[in-house]
Protein backbone atom coordinates (compact mmCIF):
# COMPACT_ATOMS: atom_id res chain seq x y z
CA UNK A 1 0.00 0.00 0.00
CA UNK A 2 3.02 2.26 0.32
CA UNK A 3 3.95 4.52 -2.52
CA UNK A 4 0.45 5.29 -3.69
CA UNK A 5 -1.08 8.71 -3.45
CA UNK A 6 -3.98 8.97 -1.08
CA UNK A 7 -6.95 9.84 -3.26
CA UNK A 8 -10.63 10.44 -2.69
CA UNK A 9 -12.69 7.67 -4.25
CA UNK A 10 -16.41 7.51 -4.92
CA UNK A 11 -18.00 4.95 -2.62
CA UNK A 12 -21.49 3.60 -3.25
CA UNK A 13 -23.54 2.29 -0.34
CA UNK A 14 -24.59 -1.29 -1.15
CA UNK A 15 -25.84 -2.71 2.14
CA UNK A 16 -27.11 -1.53 5.54
CA UNK A 17 -27.28 -3.57 8.74
CA UNK A 18 -28.71 -2.21 11.97
CA UNK A 19 -26.52 -2.95 14.99
CA UNK A 20 -28.39 -1.04 17.72
CA UNK A 21 -31.17 1.58 17.64
CA UNK A 22 -28.49 4.26 17.19
CA UNK A 23 -25.79 2.50 15.18
CA UNK A 24 -25.69 0.83 11.81
CA UNK A 25 -23.16 -0.89 9.62
CA UNK A 26 -22.71 0.55 6.14
CA UNK A 27 -21.13 -1.56 3.41
CA UNK A 28 -19.62 0.46 0.59
CA UNK A 29 -18.47 -0.64 -2.83
CA UNK A 30 -15.31 1.28 -3.73
CA UNK A 31 -13.79 0.74 -7.20
CA UNK A 32 -10.01 0.13 -7.16
CA UNK A 33 -9.92 -0.21 -3.38
CA UNK A 34 -6.29 -1.12 -2.57
CA UNK A 35 -7.14 -3.36 0.41
CA UNK A 36 -6.52 -2.69 4.09
CA UNK A 37 -5.36 -4.12 7.42
CA UNK A 38 -7.57 -4.77 10.43
CA UNK A 39 -7.52 -1.66 12.63
CA UNK A 40 -7.06 0.89 9.84
CA UNK A 41 -9.51 3.69 9.21
CA UNK A 42 -10.86 5.81 6.39
CA UNK A 43 -11.84 9.43 5.98
CA UNK A 44 -15.33 10.17 4.65
CA UNK A 45 -16.05 13.49 2.94
CA UNK A 46 -19.51 14.90 2.46
CA UNK A 47 -20.09 17.88 0.22
CA UNK A 48 -23.30 19.88 0.22
CA UNK A 49 -24.86 21.38 -2.90
CA UNK A 50 -23.55 24.81 -1.91
CA UNK A 51 -20.00 23.43 -1.89
CA UNK A 52 -19.64 23.23 1.89
CA UNK A 53 -17.61 20.15 2.68
CA UNK A 54 -16.73 18.33 5.89
CA UNK A 55 -14.93 15.11 6.71
CA UNK A 56 -14.67 12.53 9.51
CA UNK A 57 -12.57 9.48 10.24
CA UNK A 58 -14.17 6.08 10.80
CA UNK A 59 -12.62 2.74 11.66
CA UNK A 60 -13.13 -0.11 9.22
CA UNK A 61 -15.20 -2.92 10.77
CA UNK A 62 -14.18 -5.90 8.65
CA UNK A 63 -11.09 -7.23 6.90
CA UNK A 64 -10.42 -6.55 3.25
CA UNK A 65 -12.98 -8.13 0.91
CA UNK A 66 -12.30 -6.98 -2.62
CA UNK A 67 -13.99 -3.65 -3.19
CA UNK A 68 -16.30 -3.95 -0.16
CA UNK A 69 -15.54 -1.77 2.85
CA UNK A 70 -17.65 -1.98 6.03
CA UNK A 71 -18.00 0.81 8.57
CA UNK A 72 -20.18 0.92 11.67
CA UNK A 73 -21.42 4.40 12.45
CA UNK A 74 -22.70 5.44 15.86
CA UNK A 75 -25.09 8.39 15.73
CA UNK A 76 -23.72 11.26 17.80
CA UNK A 77 -26.63 13.46 18.95
CA UNK A 78 -26.33 16.93 17.39
CA UNK A 79 -23.42 15.69 15.28
CA UNK A 80 -22.86 17.14 11.84
CA UNK A 81 -22.04 13.98 9.91
CA UNK A 82 -23.02 10.87 11.85
CA UNK A 83 -26.81 11.49 11.88
CA UNK A 84 -26.72 11.72 8.09
CA UNK A 85 -24.64 8.55 7.73
CA UNK A 86 -26.52 6.59 10.39
CA UNK A 87 -30.05 7.62 9.40
CA UNK A 88 -30.40 9.20 5.98
CA UNK A 89 -27.86 7.64 3.65
CA UNK A 90 -29.64 5.01 1.54
CA UNK A 91 -28.49 2.10 -0.59
CA UNK A 92 -27.27 3.48 -3.91
CA UNK A 93 -26.15 6.81 -2.44
CA UNK A 94 -22.56 7.91 -2.89
CA UNK A 95 -20.00 9.55 -0.61
CA UNK A 96 -16.28 10.20 -1.00
CA UNK A 97 -13.87 7.97 0.92
CA UNK A 98 -10.07 7.99 1.09
CA UNK A 99 -7.85 5.44 2.72
CA UNK A 100 -6.95 3.15 4.21
CA UNK A 101 -4.84 5.12 6.67
CA UNK A 102 -3.00 4.31 9.88
CA UNK A 103 -0.29 1.67 10.09
CA UNK A 104 0.20 1.46 13.85
CA UNK A 105 -3.10 0.39 15.42
CA UNK A 106 -3.27 -2.70 13.24
CA UNK A 107 -3.24 -6.48 13.69
CA UNK A 108 -1.75 -8.72 11.02
CA UNK A 109 -2.89 -12.33 10.68
CA UNK A 110 0.74 -13.52 10.86
CA UNK A 111 0.93 -12.17 14.43
CA UNK A 112 1.59 -15.00 16.90
CA UNK A 113 1.50 -13.17 20.26
CA UNK A 114 -1.77 -13.67 22.17
CA UNK A 115 -4.06 -10.69 21.69
CA UNK A 116 -6.07 -8.72 24.22
CA UNK A 117 -8.75 -6.41 22.84
CA UNK A 118 -10.29 -3.88 25.20
CA UNK A 119 -13.29 -2.02 23.81
CA UNK A 120 -15.27 0.85 25.29
CA UNK A 121 -18.62 1.37 23.54
CA UNK A 122 -18.25 1.89 19.81
CA UNK A 123 -14.49 1.33 20.24
CA UNK A 124 -15.36 -2.25 19.36
CA UNK A 125 -15.36 -1.42 15.63
CA UNK A 126 -11.63 -1.70 14.72
CA UNK A 127 -11.26 -4.57 17.22
CA UNK A 128 -14.08 -6.44 15.47
CA UNK A 129 -12.12 -6.06 12.23
CA UNK A 130 -9.24 -7.86 13.99
CA UNK A 131 -11.54 -10.64 15.25
CA UNK A 132 -12.95 -11.09 11.76
CA UNK A 133 -9.49 -10.98 10.16
CA UNK A 134 -8.36 -13.73 12.56
CA UNK A 135 -11.33 -15.89 11.60
CA UNK A 136 -10.92 -15.17 7.88
CA UNK A 137 -7.24 -16.18 8.00
CA UNK A 138 -7.91 -19.34 10.04
CA UNK A 139 -5.40 -18.00 12.60
CA UNK A 140 -4.98 -19.90 15.86
CA UNK A 141 -3.64 -16.90 17.74
CA UNK A 142 -5.62 -16.77 21.00
CA UNK A 143 -7.77 -13.65 21.34
CA UNK A 144 -9.55 -12.24 24.36
CA UNK A 145 -12.05 -9.41 24.09
CA UNK A 146 -13.14 -7.31 27.06
CA UNK A 147 -16.06 -5.17 25.91
CA UNK A 148 -17.39 -2.44 28.19
CA UNK A 149 -20.83 -0.94 27.53
CA UNK A 150 -23.47 1.00 29.32
CA UNK A 151 -26.16 -1.63 28.85
CA UNK A 152 -26.81 -4.87 26.94
CA UNK A 153 -28.89 -3.12 24.26
CA UNK A 154 -25.81 -1.23 23.08
CA UNK A 155 -23.89 -4.33 22.01
CA UNK A 156 -22.64 -4.26 18.42
CA UNK A 157 -22.32 -7.54 16.49
CA UNK A 158 -24.17 -9.35 19.30
CA UNK A 159 -25.24 -12.37 17.26
CA UNK A 160 -21.84 -12.82 15.66
CA UNK A 161 -19.98 -12.57 18.99
CA UNK A 162 -22.38 -15.10 20.54
CA UNK A 163 -21.51 -17.77 17.97
CA UNK A 164 -18.66 -20.09 18.96
CA UNK A 165 -15.30 -18.91 17.63
CA UNK A 166 -12.60 -21.26 18.96
CA UNK A 167 -9.72 -19.35 20.53
CA UNK A 168 -11.77 -16.19 21.10
CA UNK A 169 -13.02 -15.41 24.63
CA UNK A 170 -15.51 -12.58 25.06
CA UNK A 171 -16.20 -10.81 28.37
CA UNK A 172 -18.92 -8.17 28.62
CA UNK A 173 -18.80 -5.44 31.26
CA UNK A 174 -21.79 -3.19 31.86
CA UNK A 175 -21.40 0.20 33.47
CA UNK A 176 -25.06 1.15 34.06
CA UNK A 177 -27.52 -1.70 33.46
CA UNK A 178 -26.82 -5.44 33.69
CA UNK A 179 -28.90 -8.38 32.44
CA UNK A 180 -30.97 -10.32 35.00
CA UNK A 181 -28.86 -12.64 37.10
CA UNK A 182 -25.58 -10.99 36.00
CA UNK A 183 -22.93 -11.60 38.68
CA UNK A 184 -20.87 -8.45 38.21
CA UNK A 185 -22.57 -5.28 39.47
CA UNK A 186 -22.69 -2.39 36.99
CA UNK A 187 -19.51 -0.32 37.08
CA UNK A 188 -16.54 0.95 35.17
CA UNK A 189 -13.54 -1.11 34.12
CA UNK A 190 -11.37 -2.30 37.03
CA UNK A 191 -8.09 -4.14 37.57
CA UNK A 192 -10.09 -7.26 38.44
CA UNK A 193 -11.87 -7.13 35.05
CA UNK A 194 -8.62 -7.10 33.08
CA UNK A 195 -7.07 -9.68 35.42
CA UNK A 196 -9.94 -12.06 34.75
CA UNK A 197 -10.73 -11.25 31.12
CA UNK A 198 -7.21 -10.48 29.88
CA UNK A 199 -3.83 -12.20 29.77
CA UNK A 200 -1.07 -12.29 32.40
CA UNK A 201 1.72 -9.86 31.49
CA UNK A 202 4.27 -12.68 31.19
CA UNK A 203 2.34 -14.06 28.22
CA UNK A 204 3.53 -10.84 26.50
CA UNK A 205 0.24 -10.27 24.67
CA UNK A 206 -0.35 -7.57 22.10
CA UNK A 207 -2.93 -5.23 23.66
CA UNK A 208 -5.29 -3.04 21.65
CA UNK A 209 -7.46 -0.54 23.50
CA UNK A 210 -10.11 1.56 21.74
CA UNK A 211 -12.83 3.78 23.15
CA UNK A 212 -13.52 7.23 24.56
CA UNK A 213 -10.46 9.05 25.94
CA UNK A 214 -11.22 8.47 29.64
CA UNK A 215 -11.83 4.78 29.08
CA UNK A 216 -8.63 4.36 27.09
CA UNK A 217 -6.55 6.14 29.76
CA UNK A 218 -8.01 3.94 32.50
CA UNK A 219 -7.48 0.72 30.57
CA UNK A 220 -3.91 1.64 29.56
CA UNK A 221 -3.03 2.62 33.15
CA UNK A 222 -4.39 -0.70 34.46
CA UNK A 223 -2.44 -2.69 31.86
CA UNK A 224 0.77 -0.83 32.76
CA UNK A 225 0.15 -1.46 36.47
CA UNK A 226 -0.35 -5.15 35.68
CA UNK A 227 3.14 -5.19 34.22
CA UNK A 228 2.40 -5.09 30.50
CA UNK A 229 5.10 -3.49 28.34
CA UNK A 230 4.09 0.01 27.28
CA UNK A 231 5.24 -0.80 23.73
CA UNK A 232 2.77 -3.69 23.57
CA UNK A 233 -0.21 -1.46 24.42
CA UNK A 234 -1.69 0.26 21.40
CA UNK A 235 -4.48 2.75 21.88
CA UNK A 236 -7.00 4.54 19.75
CA UNK A 237 -9.06 7.28 21.35
CA UNK A 238 -12.28 8.66 19.99
CA UNK A 239 -11.65 12.27 19.52
CA UNK A 240 -13.78 15.32 20.03
CA UNK A 241 -14.25 15.60 16.28
CA UNK A 242 -16.60 12.63 16.22
CA UNK A 243 -20.06 13.51 15.14
Amino acid at each position, binding site marked *: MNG*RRLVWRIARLVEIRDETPSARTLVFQIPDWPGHLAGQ*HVDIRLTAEDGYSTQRSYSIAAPADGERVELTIQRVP*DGEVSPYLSEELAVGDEVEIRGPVGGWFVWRPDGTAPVLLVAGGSGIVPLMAMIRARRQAGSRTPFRLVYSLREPGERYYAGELRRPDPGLDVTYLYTRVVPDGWARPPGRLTVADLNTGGWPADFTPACYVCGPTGFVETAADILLAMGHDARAIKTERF*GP*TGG
Partner: protein
Amino acid sequence: MTEPAQDSYQDGNALAGPLREIFAVDVTAAGGQCVHCGLTGPVASLRVYGHAPGLVARCPGCDEVVLRLVRGPESAWLDLRGTVSLRIPLPAQGVPDGSEAGPA
Protein backbone atom coordinates in the same frame (compact mmCIF):
# COMPACT_ATOMS: atom_id res chain seq x y z
CA MET B 1 -22.24 20.76 17.20
CA THR B 2 -21.05 20.18 20.70
CA GLU B 3 -17.98 22.20 21.56
CA PRO B 4 -15.17 19.88 22.56
CA ALA B 5 -13.56 20.45 25.93
CA GLN B 6 -10.23 22.26 25.68
CA ASP B 7 -8.32 19.30 27.07
CA SER B 8 -9.84 16.70 24.78
CA TYR B 9 -7.51 15.13 22.27
CA GLN B 10 -7.07 12.22 19.89
CA ASP B 11 -4.21 9.80 19.34
CA GLY B 12 -1.57 10.41 16.72
CA ASN B 13 -3.52 7.84 14.69
CA ALA B 14 -5.69 10.79 13.69
CA LEU B 15 -2.71 12.21 11.77
CA ALA B 16 -2.64 9.21 9.45
CA GLY B 17 -4.95 10.63 6.77
CA PRO B 18 -3.57 14.18 6.73
CA LEU B 19 0.06 12.94 6.65
CA ARG B 20 -0.66 10.34 3.98
CA GLU B 21 -1.70 13.23 1.80
CA ILE B 22 1.93 14.43 1.94
CA PHE B 23 4.10 11.34 2.41
CA ALA B 24 4.27 8.14 0.41
CA VAL B 25 4.52 6.03 3.58
CA ASP B 26 2.54 5.89 6.80
CA VAL B 27 4.32 8.26 9.17
CA THR B 28 2.17 7.40 12.21
CA ALA B 29 4.07 4.09 12.51
CA ALA B 30 7.41 5.98 12.54
CA GLY B 31 9.30 6.38 15.79
CA GLY B 32 9.93 9.99 16.80
CA GLN B 33 11.89 11.75 19.51
CA CYS B 34 10.68 14.81 21.39
CA VAL B 35 13.03 17.83 21.38
CA HIS B 36 11.84 18.95 24.79
CA CYS B 37 12.09 15.81 26.96
CA GLY B 38 13.78 13.25 24.70
CA LEU B 39 10.94 10.75 24.90
CA THR B 40 10.82 8.35 21.98
CA GLY B 41 7.69 6.63 20.70
CA PRO B 42 5.52 6.17 17.64
CA VAL B 43 3.93 9.24 16.08
CA ALA B 44 0.64 7.38 16.65
CA SER B 45 1.09 7.85 20.42
CA LEU B 46 1.23 11.66 20.29
CA ARG B 47 -1.75 13.64 21.60
CA VAL B 48 -3.47 15.44 18.77
CA TYR B 49 -5.53 18.55 19.34
CA GLY B 50 -7.68 19.27 16.34
CA HIS B 51 -9.64 22.34 17.34
CA ALA B 52 -6.86 24.75 16.41
CA PRO B 53 -6.86 25.89 12.76
CA GLY B 54 -4.95 22.71 11.97
CA LEU B 55 -3.59 19.77 13.93
CA VAL B 56 -1.25 20.19 16.91
CA ALA B 57 0.48 17.04 18.17
CA ARG B 58 1.92 17.13 21.67
CA CYS B 59 4.30 14.79 23.47
CA PRO B 60 2.50 12.38 25.84
CA GLY B 61 5.45 12.73 28.24
CA CYS B 62 5.92 16.50 28.60
CA ASP B 63 2.94 17.96 26.68
CA GLU B 64 5.18 20.17 24.52
CA VAL B 65 4.40 20.62 20.82
CA VAL B 66 6.13 18.00 18.65
CA LEU B 67 4.42 18.50 15.28
CA ARG B 68 1.96 20.90 13.69
CA LEU B 69 0.13 20.50 10.44
CA VAL B 70 -2.09 23.01 8.69
CA ARG B 71 -3.80 22.19 5.42
CA GLY B 72 -4.52 25.27 3.35
CA PRO B 73 -6.48 25.34 0.11
CA GLU B 74 -3.39 24.96 -2.07
CA SER B 75 -0.65 23.79 0.27
CA ALA B 76 0.11 22.13 3.57
CA TRP B 77 2.39 23.52 6.30
CA LEU B 78 4.25 20.95 8.38
CA ASP B 79 6.15 22.24 11.42
CA LEU B 80 8.46 19.61 12.94
CA ARG B 81 10.55 21.85 15.20
CA GLY B 82 9.59 19.81 18.25
CA THR B 83 10.88 16.59 16.68
CA VAL B 84 14.53 15.52 16.93
CA SER B 85 14.15 12.80 14.32
CA LEU B 86 11.74 10.35 12.76
CA ARG B 87 12.67 6.69 12.24
CA ILE B 88 10.52 5.51 9.37
CA PRO B 89 10.15 1.75 8.83
CA LEU B 90 10.92 0.79 5.23
CA PRO B 91 11.35 -2.49 3.37
CA ALA B 92 14.99 -3.68 3.24
CA GLN B 93 16.95 -1.92 0.53
CA GLY B 94 17.04 -3.79 -2.73
CA VAL B 95 14.36 -6.22 -1.61
CA PRO B 96 11.06 -5.73 -3.41
CA ASP B 97 8.19 -5.64 -0.92
CA GLY B 98 5.72 -6.89 -3.48
CA SER B 99 3.45 -3.89 -3.15
CA GLU B 100 4.41 -2.36 -6.48
CA ALA B 101 4.74 -4.11 -9.77
CA GLY B 102 8.25 -3.61 -11.16
CA PRO B 103 8.99 -2.46 -14.70
CA ALA B 104 8.60 -5.09 -17.34
